[in-house]
């Protein structure tokens, strides 16, 4: 093991704000967001890419924050749960639908589910239940049994089709 761990400074945009910060090369994007930028809304559930809790949006695509290195996010646009609400701070249609439909219990997996569905509904506003269940199949929720999450996503899709932003 070398005495000094390799580090570098990266510049990226997170939730619309540009950040320049130092990170160890080996840090995952999720660790960097949580510990480097203090954005602890992104959660780590397994750190081996299965549970989906750490999902964030990178250039609009849903990405596992535990499987991507922070240095790979250089120059990219990242959105986390902290950046999902409407600009005036009110809940987005998807967030509001989760509250209305009891789409969360402990709330630990919720950040990854909201980011996953935000990207999916943006691209598939007409999705039905089977498609939504497939879209959610990479996110593990231990509390809800998923049904209320699917109801919330369907409700949000209706709102989005009526013209609101995801």
């Amino acid at each position: 093991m070398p005495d000094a761990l390799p580090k570098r400074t990266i510049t990226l945009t997170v939730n619309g704000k540009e950040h320049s910060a130092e990170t160890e090369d080996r840090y995952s994007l999720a660790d960097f967001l949580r510990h480097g930028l203090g954005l602890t809304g992104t959660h780590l559930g397994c750190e081996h890419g299965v549970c989906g809790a750490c999902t964030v949006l990178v250039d609009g695509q849903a990405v596992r924050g535990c499987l991507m290195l922070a240095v790979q996010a250089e120059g990219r646009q990242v959105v986390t749960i902290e950046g999902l609400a409407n600009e005036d701070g009110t809940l987005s249609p998807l967030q509001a639908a989760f509250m209305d439909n009891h789409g969360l219990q402990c709330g630990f997996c919720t950040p990854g589910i909201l980011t996953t569905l935000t990207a999916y509904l943006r691209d598939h506003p007409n999705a039905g239940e089977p498609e939504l269940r497939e879209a959610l199949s990479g996110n593990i929720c231990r509390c809800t049994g998923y049904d209320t999450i699917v109801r919330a996503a369907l409700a949000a899709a209706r709102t989005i089709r009526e013209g609101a932003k995801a």
Partner: protein
Amino acid sequence: MSSTAFVGQRVKRLEDPDLLTGKGQFLDDLKLPGMLEAAFVRSPFAHATFTEIDAAEARSMPGVIAVLTAKDLPPKMTGKRILLQVPHPQITYAVTQEPLATSEVCFVGEAVAVVIAESRHLAEDAAERVIVDWEPLPAASHCDAALKPGAPVTHACMTDNVAGRLSLGFGDVEAAFRNAAHVIEARYEPHRGTGHPMECRGVVAVYDLVSDAFRIWSSTQTPHNTQRAVIDMFGMAEDHVRVITPDVGGGFGPKNQVYPEELVIPAAARLLGRPVKWAEDRREHFLTTTQERDQVWDVSAAVDQDGVLLGVRGTLIHDAGAYLPWGIIMPYISATTLPGPYKLPAYRMAVTVAFTNLVPTTPLRGAGRPQAVFAMERLMDAVAQKLGLDPAEVRRRNFIQASDMPYDMGLTYRDGAPVMYDTGDYPEAQAQALSKAGYDDFPARQKAALAEGRHIGIGIGNYVEGTGLGPFEGATLRILTNGRVAIYTGAAAAGQAHRTTLAQICADELNIDVTDIDVVGGDTGVMPRGAGTYASRITVNAGSSVRIASVELRGKALALAAAKFDVKPEDVELTHGAVRIKGEQGDSVTFEELAKMTSGMPGYALPKGVKPDLEASGYFTPPQATYSNGSHVAEVEVDAETGQVKILKYTVVHDCGTVINPMLVDGQVQGGVAHGIGNALLERMVFDEDANPLTTTFADYLMPTAEIVPNCDIVHMESPTPLNPLGAKGAGEGGTIPAPAAIVAAVENALTPFGVRITDCPITPQRIVELISAAQDTTQEDR
């Protein structure tokens, strides 16, 4: 008389806004000035001894502050083990874990040292460089084999693996079997899984040298148990140890234990004079967080010519794992749960609890009940097969009737009180479930499907569950000087929405909105006594305490306002956050003004009739468990080629007494069924013959996903209990308990053409293909 503007309504959760915007504060989100992070050095062997731990290289690594072994812990901890939660006279060797093992490890993952460093990354780097002179020993890898003569022993000091024996029952079992028209015998083997909350465990500890006090945050279901264990370990006074639960990302039972890390991290914080955090990762969770469900049931049922039960007898082997943090209470629950909703004239169960070199077992959503229900319901299906009866009809012939309530089973429950079913209508629950599931039409559906080459099946799971156990869970309510009402409770939430539920109960009594209430739970600093969130007990216990305290606080607010207005208390009434004189134009005083009145002015006497206590406390102590019940019906399709199971329809009739918030209870049931689907089809901790865990990622240990878990059709029956002021019973585990029984019965029913019998769970695709293949071989041999 209170109104019910909130109780019984689908009130939206007070918890959600923060959790939906990333503002939750979970354990690993806590960041204190100067905080260090920990990584543990853990045993790679299921059983080994050691004498030396060489941490010289690790200590010299960048960012490493300390490496602690058992020898480095405070002298008060020497030779001490974690406090046993539930002692029992039948335990042969009441052994719990040491904070750090001193010379022997008994399962893979047991901690022997901890590295404290500037970051978790650096701590993990150093932990890899700690060298231990392991001497591996033979290991006991399965509870059945562990009890055979000559089996390797779990602890080197033992001569066998018996952790305890229990024998319980009632009636003349021998006569029942002598007089039986038919005897059905079977062996059932439910397997190990675990809770897997999406947030793993974790601890942050701060030691305050000035006041000799700990502040400990733990991702636990039981902050008061952690507090008790810390007090026991360090010999400190209660008010010097405060344990706080931050937002907790799920519990499901395993976070109901006190773990070594909850003692070692405080010790490190005190030794080093800096805050220390340890956040468990998922691999550690697979290795070290408690599990459950490995049991072996050898059971026989004696029935008459009509399939009416005369008696059940048998033996149960329960896998304790390497230690007994919760004693032997789980197999006790299993044995007392087995009779379920059926009239059983005679019963005898001999239980042997076996140590194995596996991570300890403790209550996991259902706590020994899913296995008991699996055994009993599979037995009922076997009776039906033997007698050529419909499985629903066999159950119908044996139900305890609503008119039999209260029904004394003839056993003593784990709370020391008789198993006395309080309320419920078991025949009606099954009838409604069958009706909702289209049970009567199923034979036609099955025939039509088979004609298309599709194998569909249906299965039933009935259960009765003792919930709402004591001793108590308290609540203190206070009207604050900002006009809001605070509820302080020992109850710690992990997703169940205690804030919302407790606020609903309080809001109705005080005639305010739920959003006017702040609920602070899971903090030993605000509530000196508490038991914990387990055994589906919080709504019953904390909810009843809130009700009791709300009634008292209501009286105090009315009396205070009456004194202010110089009228009789019956002449004032609560309006929204105020008290007013009854009548069209009566004066009113707000909660805020009342609270400020009770605060007084420096140096002045309080006004006549005013006391500085606009607060009330309640400690509801239930006399016994209250028994929830339900009926589940699963309809599945099995691909006989691949063994894939698809759940086509899942029906639940659920009776947890008075429902406080149907939205939340539906959520508990649906989530519980999902866990039960895992137990039925997917989740199994596999160990090799040396007791090494083979399933340590979510790629090996499969969790239920959105594509597998169907929308359950949930019907609530409400049989209020007279045992608490709410009429409520527990709802957190009932979704899980009968699901493996119902689903496995449905799979077996689907495979009727192959003559397959299923006696274990989870039933994986591979296992289904094996069973079909074995059944076909048998059929060919028969020819």
